[in-house]
């Protein structure tokens, strides 16, 4: 029993669970879109009255969708950090890393647009704040903000744009990227079909007879390779539905139960938990350095961290693909990254005070510095090994 439990590596199954969760989100999303009205005046009512009270099991679909997004991002971070830990971005794995990072950015967009749709007080103000961040793009910032919103502030036009992005553009992009990320086409071509030089399909028996190969005995379909991820999925679904029915407050914000009011700014504006570390990173540089405004430094640090994560295969100079516990310097780097991310996420939810600002500045500086020191650190590590 003990030995079997030790073999059960949760990191191996996060991808499979995320695919199941994606399907669940897709189905619940379809049911929700049947009753949701993408209009600034009617959106809140359509969610809180029509879906939550009037439609049969509408409350269940909404809770599945909301709790699902929380769990999806939790798994996404675990998956991403797990791959980082095991160095699954080197030697033949770079394709998966880059496609995974594109998938991660697509999920960020779909998560943000989805948060705006209920048009609650926090949804509205989070959209207002996050879209205004585009103002920091040098040169054309204000024009871009106007182009994204379609108005001078978040309004019905913005809502309709976000709705289109949320239910059409982003789901299609995500499905496409999942196919790329899982190497679906290659898998399908190698296991299901094979083609001769003229482009005609060749059956398995023909292929084997041509090369005088005796085909191996087929393995049972329900082998451990299928059963173990299935077990991980069922265990996850039990936990997931427990949270859907009994701890749904994890996915809802109290302030979002009141309709959006453009004339009443909340004292503390924050997005969903999975964006909190980014928000805190932007807020952390609360002072100007010379001619450069603090907000610009915050924006630059956000770009550095995200681009740094994307370019991990290039930044990490150690050519060997080994797990972090066999690389002492990288292990320290990895845990510094995790602690900074967790610290910034928690600080992002707390109201601003002198203490939180200084702690935030510390974590932000550490997080940004990590991506600058990694090339030197990994270089030193590879030289020490050789």
């Amino acid at each position, binding site marked *: 029993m003990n030995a079997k439990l030790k073999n059960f590596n949760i990191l191996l199954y996060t991808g499979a669970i995320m695919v199941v969760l994606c399907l669940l989100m897709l189905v619940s999303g379809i049911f929700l879109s049947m009753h949701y009205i993408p209009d600034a005046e009617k959106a809140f009512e359509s969610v809180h009255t029509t879906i939550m009270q009037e439609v049969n099991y509408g409350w269940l679909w909404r809770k599945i969708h909301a709790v699902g997004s929380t769990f999806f991002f939790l798994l996404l971070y675990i998956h991403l950090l797990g791959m980082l830990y095991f160095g699954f971005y080197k030697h033949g794995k770079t394709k998966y890393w880059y496609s995974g990072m594109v998938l991660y950015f697509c999920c960020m967009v779909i998560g943000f647009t989805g948060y705006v749709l209920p048009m609650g007080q926090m949804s509205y103000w989070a959209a207002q704040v996050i879209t205004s961040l585009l103002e920091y793009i040098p040169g054309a910032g204000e024009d871009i903000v106007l182009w994204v919103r379609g108005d001078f502030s978040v309004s019905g036009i913005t809502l309709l744009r976000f709705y289109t992005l949320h239910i059409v553009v982003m789901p299609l992009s995500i499905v496409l990227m999942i196919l790329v990320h899982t190497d679906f086409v290659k898998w399908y071509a190698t296991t299901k079909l094979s083609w001769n030089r003229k482009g005609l399909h060749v059956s398995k028996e023909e292929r084997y007879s041509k090369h005088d190969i005796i085909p191996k005995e087929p393995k049972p379909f329900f082998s*451990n390779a299928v059963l173990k991820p299935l077990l991980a999925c069922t265990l996850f*679904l039990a936990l997931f539905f427990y949270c859907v029915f009994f701890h749904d407050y994890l996915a809802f*914000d109290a302030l979002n139960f009141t309709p959006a009011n453009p004339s009443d700014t909340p004292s503390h504006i924050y997005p969903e938990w999975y964006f909190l570390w980014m928000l805190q990173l932007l807020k952390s540089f609360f002072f100007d350095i010379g001619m450069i405004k603090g907000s610009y430094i915050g924006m630059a640090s956000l770009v550095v961290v995200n681009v740094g994560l994307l370019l991990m295969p290039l930044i990490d100079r150690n050519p060997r693909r080994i797990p972090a*516990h066999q690389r002492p310097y990288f292990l320290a780097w990895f845990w510094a990254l995790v602690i900074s991310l967790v610290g910034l996420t*928690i600080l992002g939810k707390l109201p601003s005070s002198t203490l939180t600002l200084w702690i935030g500045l510390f974590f932000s500086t550490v997080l940004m510095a990590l991506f600058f020191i990694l090339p030197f650190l990994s270089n030193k590590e590879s030289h020490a090994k050789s």
Partner: protein
Amino acid sequence: MPNLKIFAAIVMCVFVLVIGLEWLPKQYTSQSSAVVMEQTLHVSTNEEKVIYEKEMSRRDVIGYSIVGYFLLLSVLLYIKIALQRFTCKD
């Protein structure tokens, strides 16, 4: 790092996050604003209260049934894996 250590690290990080995101902000703000009310049903009269309680208990039953179903499925899958290994060893 053994798998159990990885699992323990993930659980610890999630625990810290839940405490940091749910419990800690409540220490800064007043309790009344932080409590999420169940808004799926309006409650004003006694009759509506009875309907509300009935509906809530019905939802609880659905919840326990679904969770129970997946737990049972997990147990059956685990037994299937264990049996498959047992027959392989033979």
